[in-house]
């Protein structure tokens, strides 16, 4: 069974530029999550989708971050404009339903210079 796919794996951008990350969850998984993992810290939830609807985006900095899951399958996370403190690994994860095991992708590493 294919895992959670993410791209790009690595991205270096200058501050104030924009970047987008793509995620394809495990087939059939209705719940999709985006986490931010700053070096040396645990993952922090940014947004949770159930199918194509947002369940929780309370920790998403909405002035610069946006995310969508238009057809209830793959998802994109966008940052515009990026700040230095956005340097982190952006992890996409999925589960069959809320409460089921959460499977993580390998992450997209962002460095803002």
């Amino acid at each position, binding site marked *: 069974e294919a895992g*959670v796919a993410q791209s790009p794996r690595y991205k270096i951008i200058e501050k104030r530029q924009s970047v987008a990350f793509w995620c394809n969850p495990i087939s059939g998984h209705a719940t999709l*999550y985006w986490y931010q993992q700053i070096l*040396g*810290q*645990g*993952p*922090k*939830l940014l947004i*949770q989708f*159930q199918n194509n609807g947002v*369940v*929780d985006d309370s920790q998403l900095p909405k002035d610069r971050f946006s995310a969508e899951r238009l057809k209830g399958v793959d998802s994109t996370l966008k940052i515009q404009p990026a700040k230095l403190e956005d340097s982190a690994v952006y*992890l996409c*994860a999925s589960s069959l339903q*809320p*409460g089921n*095991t*959460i*499977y*993580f*992708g*390998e*992450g997209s590493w962002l460095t803002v210079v």
Partner: protein
Amino acid sequence: QQQVKQSPQSLIVQKGGISIINCAYENTAFDYFPWYQQFPGKGPALLIAIRPDVSEKKEGRFTISFNKSAKQFSLHIMDSQPGDSATYFCAASTKGSARQLTFGSGTQLTVLP
């Protein structure tokens, strides 16, 4: 306010020894406590999980001990191997439709050969 506190931040153990990582939580609504293992460049992967109706769960060399009254749980790795060298995260989630994970800050385990 951090809801799941994890210690130690780093741990060095000799091959064959026992690795112990501790976590404490504040939110009494948490009812699911997983441990994730993360290798460099990879996403976290579920290792073992426990619910508060049991005090211990064992899977192979990995054991979770749970103390509901103290609001603490710990991961024990018996007969630690160099291949166990990774970062370990405890996490917790509550009941409800969202079932989001709150992660600890992580423990970097190094098992010396």
